């Protein structure tokens, strides 16, 4: 009894991510997980909103934030969302090589984003003296944005692990759901960022 046959069919089905029961389970389960993540980030956003003026004499959002870098980061992440859509497009066309290519571009953009964020944080800490413990606002800011950053990092590791593992064996019905799910995760991270740049940075600048 070999699995290879059923997982590597002659023609790829239209939605390879949902072609097997395992795939369907992963697909639905991951969406549900994202529903939970929504509440997770809402709790962090709520905390941030409650504390965004609690500067305890330290620097405020208005004084700290510069929008140039944030804009660049936003574009990087939005674009990476598009590139991962491209990757899924090629997955559906059963073109493994192109899928990998677009995922690699996504990863590069993701690292660009992450690097900028690290640069931003170190800048605040060293140049502005704004740290995790300087005020309730500081704690809330680093926690919210840091949680997002952590998600980005996790997503990147996940992408890399998947690409390396499957580099030699190409696309099949066993790994298609995995690629699909990680790209869902990536879009979700982007969704969260849209709210971060709006609520944290832009609203922080509007006084």
């Amino acid at each position, binding site marked *: 009894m070999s699995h290879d046959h059923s997982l590597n069919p002659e023609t790829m089905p239209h939605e390879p991510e949902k072609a097997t029961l395992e795939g369907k389970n992963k697909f639905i389960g991951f969406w549900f997980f994202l529903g939970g993540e929504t509440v997770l980030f809402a709790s962090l956003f709520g905390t941030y909103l409650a504390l965004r003026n609690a500067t305890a004499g330290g620097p405020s959002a208005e004084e700290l934030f510069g929008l140039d870098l944030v804009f660049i980061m936003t574009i990087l992440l939005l674009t990476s969302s598009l590139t991962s*859509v491209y990757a899924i497009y090629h997955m559906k066309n059963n073109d493994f090589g192109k899928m990998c290519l677009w995922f690699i571009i996504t990863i590069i953009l993701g690292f660009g984003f992450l690097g900028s964020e690290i640069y931003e944080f170190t800048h605040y800490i060293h140049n502005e003296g704004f740290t995790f413990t300087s005020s309730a606002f500081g704690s809330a800011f680093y926690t919210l944005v840091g949680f997002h950053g952590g998600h980005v990092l996790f997503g990147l590791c996940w992408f890399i692990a998947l690409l390396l593992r499957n580099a030699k064996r190409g696309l099949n019905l066993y790994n298609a759901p995995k690629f699909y799910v990680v790209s869902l995760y990536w879009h979700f991270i982007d969704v969260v960022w849209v709210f971060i740049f*709006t609520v944290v940075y832009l609203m922080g*600048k509007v006084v």
Partner: protein
Amino acid sequence: MTENTSSKKVDTFQKRKNKEEMKYQLITFGLMIIFTLVAFGLVVGELMPKMFVIPTILLLAIVQVAFQFYYFMHMKHSGHEMPSVMIYGGIWAAILTVTALSVLTWW
């Protein structure tokens, strides 16, 4: 068929449909970039009084996110009924949480 380098086939009809979808996704992306530009522009340019800016940029964010969900994450496709239920459930709980924490903590 020629451009399909892989040994496995995908039928042409599906391929066309995928292409079409890609077109929508590109348009969506364009709109998202525009929304972002508008949001940043409004804040940097101080074009509106504060009372309007905040609701406007929030609205832009919500529309952008809807694009992500419906186009990039395919929520508009069939087979996404349960995912929609759970995402909307999550959004519901999220709204309650955010409202509570931003309204009911300081008095």
